[in-house]
């Protein structure tokens, strides 16, 4: 049944002048209108859904005070759970603000004092104090937060953690 109807339409298609041809044209016309209406509705819906999200994420930088630089001894880390980061004071005196999120699948890492490394509870990834991967499955270093030091006060932009390919000393901030 279905196939037959199709054939009918196809046979009539070449004869533009015939009434069938006009009917065919009108049918196509409504098809296009329908398509345009569909696209328009999709576009309107997507814009609506996106608009709601944009507002919540501000792109402004705003630094939060975390700790005084002199309170954190060299070669140690200071967990700042509220902002979900670790403040690391490296051996050479530089500071890094590392995200608490394991780059493998996003569990929160913990600092192992004895081994002096970060460990992930989920799949046993390990990271050094600079966030470099010591043990897979994680494949890239921990994200870092922008950090600055003002009059000995460490301030971190909590809204903008950034991924990186590898650690380099340029990422540190010194007091």
């Amino acid at each position, binding site marked *: 049944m279905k196939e037959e109807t199709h054939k009918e339409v196809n046979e009539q298609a070449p004869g533009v002048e015939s009434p069938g041809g006009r009917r065919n044209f009108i049918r196509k016309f409504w098809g296009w209108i329908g398509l345009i209406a569909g696209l328009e509705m999709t576009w309107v819906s997507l814009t609506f859904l996106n608009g709601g999200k944009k507002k919540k994420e501000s792109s402004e930088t705003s630094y939060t005070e975390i700790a005084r630089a002199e309170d954190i001894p060299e070669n140690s880390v200071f967990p700042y759970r509220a902002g979900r980061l670790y403040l690391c004071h490296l051996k050479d005196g530089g500071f890094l603000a590392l995200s608490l999120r394991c780059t493998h699948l996003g569990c929160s890492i913990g600092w192992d004092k004895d081994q002096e490394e970060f460990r992930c*509870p989920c*799949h046993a990834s390990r990271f050094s104090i600079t966030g470099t991967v010591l043990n897979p499955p994680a494949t890239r270093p921990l994200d870092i937060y922008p950090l600055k030091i003002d009059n000995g006060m460490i301030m971190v932009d909590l809204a903008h953690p950034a991924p990186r390919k590898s650690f380099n000393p340029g990422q540190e901030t010194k007091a």
Partner: protein
Amino acid sequence: MANKQTNFIYHIHPEKVPASTIRFTHTFGLGGMALVLFLLQIVTGILLKFVYEPTPDKAYDSILFMQNHLLFGHYIRNIHHLSGTLLIFVALFHLLRVFFTEAFYGPRSSNWIIGVVIFIIILFSNFTGYLLPWDQLSYWAVTVVTQMLSYIPVVGPELTSFVRGGKEVGAATLLTFFNFHTAVLPFALIILLLFHFWKVRQAGGVVVPRNRNHNGKGIIPVVPELVVRELVTGLILLAVIFLLAVFIDAPLRERANPAYSPNPAKAPWYFLGIQELIMHFHPFIGVVIIPVTLFTLLFYLPCFPFRIRNTGIWFSSSKGRKMALISALLALVIHPILIVASEYLIHFNTWFPSLLPVISGGLFPLILYSIIFLLYLFYIIRRYKPLSNEIVQAVFVYFLVTYTVLSITAIFFRGPGMALMWPWKIS
């Protein structure tokens, strides 16, 4: 002749069907059971919606309130949880029934594709529901699974933050998942199911073995024969669920805490096979390449050119049955060995530290695994000289058992740090 009720029934069923198709063992009533479970999800889900509040501050409390202060609150939640879990099993077994009776050809091929889409939607219904209680279990399961998406090349990281509605799982994620769970996905399922049922009728009912003709006695009226059986199956299923839901509690852990992940942090059980996979392969291979390949093959199934079709016959042939059994046994032996070897012996990552992780931890294990798979394939082809549909069936069984082994490993044999250990050593 027909009164109003039977008139309605004839919208769903034909007046008469072949007697052989209403035997319980022909379909095991699995399609009907899936429908009953889905309807139960809608009824209990709507009840839950009257109490549940989809915001991070209130979600957990609303569940606590429901469990502790509402008469039957806990019970409704248990039913919704149990029936959602059962739905995965029933839909899977229904899929297997269709597969092993080769009911995916000709007029049924489009219905197979619709069915696979339905199956995926059922998985995601369960997954979006999993987040809603907002406890440690749901928060970290969703964190882990959405992060898996970030390993898709180019669009991955964007996709993760799109699904989460932000950088981390938070209020936006909860609202999105809630809307998908209680509106988008059920709506899509209803549409697809209507289509699914229509297609079953369009194909002339369920499959019957080829070359069997039904002129004369083999045909019986649907009312009362089939309809009574359907009602009885449905009622027994409901009775079993209502009874079990008294004893089996839906899990609820501590309130979600983004700063501390539980150890170990596991995905929901139906995705744990994939989490197990990425213990052994780079996530790009485990999350993208392997699942996408397998699901593509599943969609493509009706298009495989088979010369001889054994539609309607369980396991195709006695040779097919033997091959399926051998494949299951081989998969059952090979994979535990591979898992243990990969855990303790094979470390491509550390052996080739200078190579990209995708190569050393992804491509190399994949090549090794493919060699083992090809050996298996070569073996069964040499030994049985099978038809192409018997090979497809054997390989299907092989991967089915593989996913089961992976899931069981991850569910029962992985403790803190996702280290391999015996189930009784995990407290």
